[in-house]
């Protein structure tokens, strides 16, 4: 399945990636901004939409594939990453993007992340982290701060939140970044870089839930508090420093690239393809497949 890779190149516009389906997010939801940033990043890269496979789970954020002209798969809760890996291995020429929420990705889907990262397929994983379960109306999410009162933690949660930035770095991801729709050019650039990174790339997007989110997690707060990593003079090739910075997730709103492996290793899909090519000459004729079992 060696589909020739084509590009729209300079001719692509964000509109080319926008589908007829009207988003039904709440007015003001951060995901609108994420969608716009994605349109722009896709246009900048210019792959024709039908060469893009866009996989998601379930959640408000997971609706995003339907709003693009790519092949979308709005699958089941928490399983976007395994499905996406199957897609990519089936056809490594596709540009495969995975998206979803903090609950989808780090709660029910949390067991798949480490393995997706260590396999290092050339995938882009965009999480719209709103620190809450939006679709199901406001329950505690794994990134909700400790003590938060929600409908499922009316007396305040008793557990520490997870740290998506630190976890994915510890898993060995080659590209880890954070953005917010409160700063659109930056977010667009991050998505574009993530897609272009040859390997597993993760962007944690602080995407406000206007309906169930906290005050501190809204656009206004983002704008007031965001700290571009570039302005801190962070060198994205410094993994140890990245680990250190990642530890302030939930306290500081760092935006930009935390880590980018300066020497990306070969991707799993490339290794697979290499193996297939190397072994192809050993293929037997279909009618001879059973010969190995012949007793003579």
């Amino acid at each position, binding site marked *: *399945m060696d*589909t020739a890779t084509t590009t729209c190149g300079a001719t692509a516009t964000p509109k080319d990636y926008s589908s007829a*389906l009207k988003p039904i997010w709440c007015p003001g939801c951060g995901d609108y901004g994420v969608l716009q940033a994605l349109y722009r990043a896709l246009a900048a890269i210019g792959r*024709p*939409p*039908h*060469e*893009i*496979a866009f*996989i998601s789970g*379930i959640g408000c954020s997971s609706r995003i*594939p*339907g709003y693009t*002209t*790519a*092949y*979308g*798969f*709005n*699958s*089941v809760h928490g*399983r976007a*990453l*395994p*499905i*996406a*890996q*199957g*897609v*990519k*291995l*089936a*056809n490594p*020429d*596709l540009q495969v993007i995975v998206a979803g929420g903090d609950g989808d990705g780090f709660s029910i889907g949390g*067991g*798949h992340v*480490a*393995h997706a990262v260590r396999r290092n397929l050339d995938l882009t994983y965009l999480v719209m982290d709103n620190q809450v379960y939006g679709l199901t109306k406001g329950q505690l999410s794994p990134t909700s701060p400790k003590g938060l009162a929600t409908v499922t933690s009316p007396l305040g949660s008793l557990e520490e939140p997870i740290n998506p930035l630190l976890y994915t770095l510890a898993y060995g991801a080659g590209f880890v970044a954070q953005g917010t729709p409160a700063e659109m050019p930056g977010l667009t650039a991050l998505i574009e870089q993530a897609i272009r990174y040859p390997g597993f790339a993760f962007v944690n997007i602080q995407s406000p839930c206007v309906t169930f989110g906290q005050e501190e997690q809204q656009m206004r707060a983002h704008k007031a508090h965001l700290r571009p990593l570039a302005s801190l003079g962070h060198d994205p090739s410094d993994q140890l420093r990245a680990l250190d910075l990642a530890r302030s997730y939930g306290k500081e709103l760092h935006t930009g690239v935390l880590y980018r492996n300066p020497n990306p290793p070969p991707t799993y899909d490339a290794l*697979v393809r290499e*193996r*297939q090519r*190397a*072994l*192809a000459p*050993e*293929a*037997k004729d*279909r*009618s001879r*497949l*059973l010969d190995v*079992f*012949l*007793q*003579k």
Partner: protein
Amino acid sequence: MVVDLVLGMAGSGGDGVVSAGESLLAAVSSHGYHAMMTKSFGPQIRGGESSCRVRVGTVPVHNPGGALDAAVALNWEDFLKFGAELELAPTTVLIHEAKAGPPPEALVRRGAMPTEVVAVPITELTNQSAGTEKAKTSVVLGLLCGWFGVPEDGVRRGLEKKFAKKGEGLLETNERALKAGIEHALANPLRSTKRLAPPPTHSPKLLCDGNDLCATAALFAGCKFFGGYPITPSTEVMQTLAKEIWKYGGTVLQAEDEIAGIGAALGASFAGLKSMTATSGPGMALKTEIMGLASIAELPLVILDVQRGGPATGLPTKSEQADLFQAAFSAHGDVLRPVLAPISVGDTFRVTVEAFNLAEHYQTPVIILSDQEVAQRKETVEPIDTSRFTIEERLAPSASDLVDYRRFRHTESGVSPISHPGLAGGSYLGAGIEHNEKGDPTASGAEHARMNEKRFKKLEPLQHRRDLFDVLGPSDAPFALISWGSSAGVAREAFELARAKGLAVKLLIPRLLYPIAVPVYREFLASVEAGLVVELSHQGQLHKILRMQLDLPAGLRSFCHSGATPFRPDQVLAELEALAAVGVK
């Protein structure tokens, strides 16, 4: 001289009885006998006791047989752990390690003790001949050659193959042990005279197990992706594919769990490839949600469930046919998906190819419901003529389909042309949420009803797949046997025995278990007044499903028991005769 011989042995994990069984099997099959070997372990997959039984015949053998003709106990403790698996009869020749002492009370109490019990100083013979205890099973093989006519040169050739790469020393050691065994046998003739008749005229055969043939059939059918997670007794399918599939441009992904395994396989199918996952009962349970997704997203997918004893971890190394309910019914919402079961090692090839064909043709998940016995027993298989198989591909959209493409278009057959990422003009939103023809989400009850109808309608042609059923015996017979999976071979032998005794009985063996092919059963059952549905489960799940979908003759009963020990042909025969004795009406 006998035309059919059943040999069994048991020892502790390290004794190598299973490996000895394999040598035996290779020896007899290389001489043109039909043969079959089953193995059995303790409650844990790794460690503990192990046993094997080999059945050899001059005519095809369909099941592991009944009570043993010869039994070998390397020690009593382990032997005792296998009750029904190594059944004794008064006619069995019971051979045991001399230093273990005579058969213990516990065995005697079970009843049906062999009249001929032979103590052999196996360890002593091994030490004397080979200088190491490790060659014990070669002595045993020698005894079997000497006493039962197992072809000596076949065994010798087997030893050569097995030890060729392990250095000269080991081969010689074992050859000496073999010789010692043979000589001991010749020097101490048995009272019993069960010597194997000469082999039938030689014709080449395949020697393999069901998992081997499943993996090979997947390659043959064009499977390009396998996603799975190891689990007994299905892992060998992944293992074989992990060696071979790359040559054909495919990939095996050992996923982090069963959900990821089926998820990746579904993703590969979404991307356009023939795709598969394999597991056993506990893994099937975990795959349930994504199987439902495959149904509503109308994506082809082959799912192999090699059944083992349940529930939960259950009896991981033993066979049972109690996953049928799960295969047919476990989904939330209304789902219909084909369930196929192979009835023997050889049949696994055909059934697997069929599963891929159905999956691709009808854009549906298809379950292959194998079981531990079919999957892991090794047997001689008649060569398979692969040229008579057709291979189906999914329906691609035509150019006109791609104008304003509707992925889930309502068609007469219920099957819609399916695109895949990479195909220009075919973009759509695959979804687990209910959708309209285009794939856009809907919450409309009317749309939902239409889509449910579509998904059920497209499988209606399966009702008429007579070729997925074996029907034997006179069409007007009032008595019947119905059986599936590994029990089918037992039912088949019981059927033949009953026919030989003049009973008016017929036999139905479905490979398509679900949906129930109503016309096929109706026709078969038209003459039937009484009979048995033979299956290895506590509940008799096929019988229950048949009741659900058909008006059964009042006398058609379930004949079932919990798993681990397969039925014996004589048990089924006896039950059938009892039924017939009551008489028709």
